[in-house]
């Protein structure tokens, strides 16, 4: 059973949710917790390639995402249906993710002691 699951449901720019959720993931890992990430809803936009957040004066999350493996955050899930409805494909993302079906979501949540939902 993993320790912490962080669910990302917000896009990378527009609000600070994505960045602040990612901060929590990194801090959790730095505290020795096994952290998993789940991207769903508009959160899957954080996985889009070639983002240009600086065009709207934002930092975005891309740079932080590249650092995830340094924090041993390797269990990264993306919700299939959320990708489909947004015209995105699991093999065209900016980091490696495991696609997960709606049916498998409850099981994923149950595998974690704590769930943070952003």
């Amino acid at each position, binding site marked *: 059973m993993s320790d912490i699951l962080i669910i990302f449901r917000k896009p990378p720019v527009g609000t600070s949710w994505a960045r*602040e959720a990612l901060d*929590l993931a990194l*801090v959790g890992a*730095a*505290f020795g917790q096994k952290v998993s990430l789940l991207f769903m809803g508009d959160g899957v936009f954080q996985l889009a390639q070639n983002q240009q957040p600086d065009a709207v004066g934002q930092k975005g999350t891309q740079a932080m995402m590249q650092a995830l493996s340094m924090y041993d955050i390797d269990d990264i899930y993306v919700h299939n249906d959320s990708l489909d409805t947004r015209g995105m494909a699991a093999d065209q993302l900016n980091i490696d993710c495991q696609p997960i079906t709606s049916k498998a979501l409850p099981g994923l949540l149950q595998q974690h002691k*704590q769930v*943070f939902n*952003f």
Partner: protein
Amino acid sequence: MKYSIAVYGGPYSHQATHTAFHFAQAVLDKGHEIQRVFFYHDGIYNGSALVAPPQDEANLPQQWQQLAEKNGVELVVCIAAAVRRGLLDENEAKRYSKPGSNLEQGYQLSGLGQLVDAGLECDRLVSFGP
């Protein structure tokens, strides 16, 4: 049971803070313990000493402060989220050469690790956000 509460919503912008406060009262009324309330994202504005609502509206920073004082609850504000939004204690005001500090008494600035710690230490961590 030992609880902690995470608040992500700003007072006077979202119901989250009010709901979190009512939940905290209910938890204590039932005889449980609250170890910590952690303020993150826009929730950090709950720690502002400069909040000045109209007289017929609740002063949430003060209500949290009273609840915490009476029941031995820690009020912890994420330092990174607070400082970038202009909520500073005396140390941070000095560090960034700002003209004043505005963290309400009874609150403390600390790291996000306190939220992780609350999740580990408590039987329940319940979060309230917009």
